[in-house]
Each structure stands twice: as structure tokens, then as C-alpha cells.
């Protein structure tokens, strides 16, 4: 019966389509923001989650890659390498650099590592790791912004470098990564930003951490999990308030659209509703039918919004891979649940007005 009531009381197609479009836009807005956040998160997780990066040694006061400050002297590297259970210890130099090519100019987050096989190198889409100081690997989005590809040359801090690879999961939205040999990022290299340590399989990273800390109180040392957490906190710090705000605004606008549609039905179909009440239908049954109507509206809107977000993601990736859009089915579930709950709650207000309809109106309409 709810199905028949929902079908019977549905409004005009145009109004329904407008409401579906509104909910779709809200869905897309929230999903896209989720996707941007997730892709940045995914980039950080992928880079820091590479095998072998068991410990991060940083200057005191630095706890993440994004906003690091201070430097470590290169003799520290020798001390760490001599410790038991240290398989490898490699330096990482982190700096912002200006890269120019074909009239375009971007500022990138440069990661200098012991190329080509040292710890902390890039993950590739295409090409190779840099083998000399005049070779670099650049993020895909940065390559798109600079209109360059593998084999092209760019100016990095006014030094000519050849692109030998394109990296993936290295787009932090506000900036992208560029990788090169330590010498290509700073010449000469007396100091480094971090030392990454690979610990022997049989040993616990925490024990090695304590060993380093015992002699060097001027350093901060993190396990890979802790360092990842710090970096996620850092990239999320700016995002989360905006994500929350857009989610609240998007959800509210979707809820208002649902309330508007149901209110329209209750107000404009008063005569029909009075007839239903007069013939013995309960207000609860009518509310059930209208809620089903609202649910269909929400499902249509969320489905349309999801499809549009997918299309946008696909189109952007194809035409302008500058803003990475990746979201999980869990994110979609969260967005759909929030919008559905808000929509159903919003429809309660007009549904409460059902009790104002006198069945006797059926005789007067």
C-alpha cells in the first residue's frame, strides 16, 4: 500500500527532477571533497608505506615530512649505520624548489634521496629512478601543469634537469613531489632533513629507536606508523574543517530539498490526503508512503550524484590530472547514509502537518 500511496502522491516530474538534481549536486560536492582528501591521504600513505622505511630520524621539533624544519649533520648517518640491527640508513633531503618548463612555473616539494636505489625514492607510473644528479622524477600532476613528459628537460632552481620518470601517489594537491639525487637538490650536501632506517627483520624497530635515542637526544625518532600518523594529521589539519563544513552545508541543502518536496505534496494535495483520511487510511500509512517517496528521491539523487562524481573523476584523470579524485565505497556509504538520514529527518516536519488535515475537508474540496 505504501508503494501505491508514494506513487499516487508523487509531485510533478519537473519538480522531482529539480530536487533529484539538487541532491545530486550536494552528493557530488561532498564526495568530491572526500575524494580529494582521500587521494592526498593515499599519496602520503603510499609514499611513507614503502618497505624498508622502518624508522624516521628527524631534527628535534620535526615530526612530519610536510612541514619539517632544521637539518641533521651528515656524520649522524655514520653513527646510525654502525648501530646493531640497522640494515640500511639513508639520508632524505626535503626542500621546496621552483621548477620551470615551457613558460610554466611551479613550486614543488623536492625529495632528495640516495638515487637510484636508496630508501625514500618514488613510486612510478613510467620511467626510471634518477641515476645521476641531472636527472629527476616528477609527479604526474606537476608534469601536466608544466606540459612535460619523460625525456623533457626542466629548470630546477635554475639548473637543467632531465625528466627520467613520472611518479604516482605524490600529489598533495597544494603541491606535488619531485624526486632527485641528493646532489641534484642541494649542492653541496653537508646536511640532510631526515635519515630513514631499515631495521633487520629479526629486530624490533622500537629497540633500534631506543639505541639511537640513547646517544642522540638532539634527534626525534619515529616508527613508520607514528610518522605516517603525524603526516596524516598534518595534511588533514587544513582539510577536515573544510570537509566538515561542506558536508554540513551539502547535507542541509539536500535535506531542505526533501522537506520542500514533501511540504509541496502535503500542501498541494490536501484534498487527496483528506479523502484518504476520510476513507479510513491512518496518518501513519500516509506518512509511510510519503517517506517512501522521499527515500526514492534521495536514492535517485545520491545515485545521480555518485555517477556524476565518477564521471568527473574519470574526465579529470583523462583531461587534467591535477586534482586527484579517489574515494572508497566506505566513503560513499558514509555520504549516502548521512544524506538519507538528514533527508528522512527533514521530511518529518512536513509529515507532522498531516495531523492538521481534517478528513471532513474531503467533503468541502
Amino acid at each position, binding site marked *: 500500500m505504501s508503494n*501505491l500511496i508514494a*506513487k*499516487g502522491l508523487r509531485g510533478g516530474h519537473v519538480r522531482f527532477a529539480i530536487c533529484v538534481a539538487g541532491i545530486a549536486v550536494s552528493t557530488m560536492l561532498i564526495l568530491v571533497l572526500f575524494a580529494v582528501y582521500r587521494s592526498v591521504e593515499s599519496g602520503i600513505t603510499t609514499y611513507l608505506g614503502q618497505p624498508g622505511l622502518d624508522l624516521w630520524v628527524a631534527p628535534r621539533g620535526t615530526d612530519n615530512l610536510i612541514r619539517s624544519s632544521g637539518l641533521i649533520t651528515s656524520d649522524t648517518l655514520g653513527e646510525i649505520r654502525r648501530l646493531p640491527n640497522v640494515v640500511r640508513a639513508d639520508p632524505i633531503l626535503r626542500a621546496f624548489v621552483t621548477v620551470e618548463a615551457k613558460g610554466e612555473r611551479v613550486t614543488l616539494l623536492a625529495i632528495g634521496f640516495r638515487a637510484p636505489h636508496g630508501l625514500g625514492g618514488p613510486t612510478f607510473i613510467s620511467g626510471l629512478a634518477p641515476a645521476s644528479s641531472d636527472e629527476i622524477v616528477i609527479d604526474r600532476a606537476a608534469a601536466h601543469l608544466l606540459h612535460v613528459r619523460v625525456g623533457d628537460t626542466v629548470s630546477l632552481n635554475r639548473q637543467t634537469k632531465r625528466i627520467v620518470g613520472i611518479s604516482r601517489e605524490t600529489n598533495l594537491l597544494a603541491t606535488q613531489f619531485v624526486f632527485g639525487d641528493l646532489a641534484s637538490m642541494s649542492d653541496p650536501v653537508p646536511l640532510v632533513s631526515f635519515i630513514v632506517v631499515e631495521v633487520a627483520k629479526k629486530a624490533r624497530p622500537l629497540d633500534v629507536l631506543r639505541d639511537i635515542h640513547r646517544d642522540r637526544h638532539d634527534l626525534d625518532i619515529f616508527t613508520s606508523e607514528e610518522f605516517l600518523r603525524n603526516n596524516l594529521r598534518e595534511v588533514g589539519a587544513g582539510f577536515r574543517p573544510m570537509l566538515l563544513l561542506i558536508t554540513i552545508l551539502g547535507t542541509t541543502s539536500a535535506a531542505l530539498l526533501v522537506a520542500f518536496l514533501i511540504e509541496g505534496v502535503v500542501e498541494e494535495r490536501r484534498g*487527496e490526503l483528506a*479523502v*484518504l483520511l476520510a476513507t*479510513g487510511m491512518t496518518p501513519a500509512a500516509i506518512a509511510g508512503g510519503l517517506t517512501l517517496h522521499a527515500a526514492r528521491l534521495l536514492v535517485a539523487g545520491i545515485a545521480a550524484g555518485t555517477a556524476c562524481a565518477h564521471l568527473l573523476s574519470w574526465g579529470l584523470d583523462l583531461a587534467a590530472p591535477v586534482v586527484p579524485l579517489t574515494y572508497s565505497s566506505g566513503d560513499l556509504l558514509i555520504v549516502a547514509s548521512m544524506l538519507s538520514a538528514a533527508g528522512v529527518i527533514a521530511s518529518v516536519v512536513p509529515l507532522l502537518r498531516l495531523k492538521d488535515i481534517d478528513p*471532513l475537508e*474531503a467533503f468541502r*474540496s
Partner: protein
Amino acid sequence: MSAIRLECVWKHRGEGRRFVSVLRDISFAIEAGEVVLLLGPSGSGKTTLLGVVGGLLSADAGSVETAGALVDTQDQAARRRMRSSDIGFVFQRPSLLGGLTARENVLLMASLAGMDRKASEIEIDTLFESLGISALADHFPHQLSGGEEQRVGIARALIHRPAVLLADEPTGNLDAASGTAVAELMVALAVERRSAVLIATHDPRLERYASKRLLMRDGQAIVESA
């Protein structure tokens, strides 16, 4: 046992200086298959009386028995059940649900009355054929004329074979030819189904179908044989 029986029914409205007795000491009975017209000027209490008989309003004094149930003693839920299973309503404007076809509009009432889907479909076919609207079963209300819409309204009122049919100005929105045809069909089908029929109307053409007339004036009713 009468299908409708009212004894000394009073219904008041308002308070203080606005206090009005809309129904004053009304008593009458209608048997199954009997057709009674409710006549009177606007504001004489016809709609209030229909509301009281249909359990939409409560009488302030007296006793109202509809389809074998004492309406005064019923709670709201029982009254709703009574309206959906034992009473059929025909309104001046049928107010069919715009999103449903003619068949679905009647099917919704059948579903509300707790009828089996298959039996409902058969009954709808029979009613639509009797009412001459079989070809319009899949039409939506906006595709129907006023007379056709009212015929669907009559099918909706009779689908569950109610013991009581209450009609409020059923020909009020129709032209003379349509009105006569619709009224004839409604009365014939209701009588065939042994429904007690109470029709509130200004239309003198309906008098020929009635066995009794209730003349309402200032809340009082005078029962006349037709």
C-alpha cells in the same frame, strides 16, 4: 437491523456567544438497500450529519449506529477500520490520486479494506464494466472528464461492497446529462450490493431514486417518504 440508525443525536459547535447546535435531536434509520436523500440549504447541517454517520465527527448526545457498530463507543482506530471496510464515500470532487491510474486508485481502496489482490482485480473489472469505464482503467485522472472521474470515484466507494454508502453532492460538479447518468449508476450499483445509501444533495433529479427524504433546516431533520 438497520444499516444506519440515529436516535436523538445532537451536535454542537463553538462556545459562548458563538455556540450553535448544528444537529438537533436527529432520529432516523436506513435499511440495507434503501436510498435516502438528505436535502436542505447550505449550512443546514448536511455535511455534519454525513460526518457523524461516517464516524468522522462525534455526536455530543444521542446514539449513532453505522453498519452494526455503535460509533460513539468506538475509538479512532476502530472508526478508521469501520470507514475503510464498511463505508463507501462519494465526494463532490472525487480527488483521485493524480499519480495513480483509475484502476490503481480503486485498488488502493481495496487494499485499505484488506481485500485480496486477485479478488480486487476481478471486482474492479466488474465495476468498471458496469460504470462504462473499462477502456479508461489505465488512464490517469488528468486524462479523464469530470463524469469519468466521478465514475471512478463511485467504483472506489463500492469496491469493498460497503454496508453504507455516503455521498456528498455526487452530481454537483457535473452537467445535467453526466449527472443523471452518474447518479443512476451509483444508486443502481449500491442497491444491487445491498448498501444503505445516504445522499446529501441539492439536485432534485435524484429524488426519483430515493425511498425517503430527510429535509434539513437549522439542524433539524424532517423525514418524508418519497
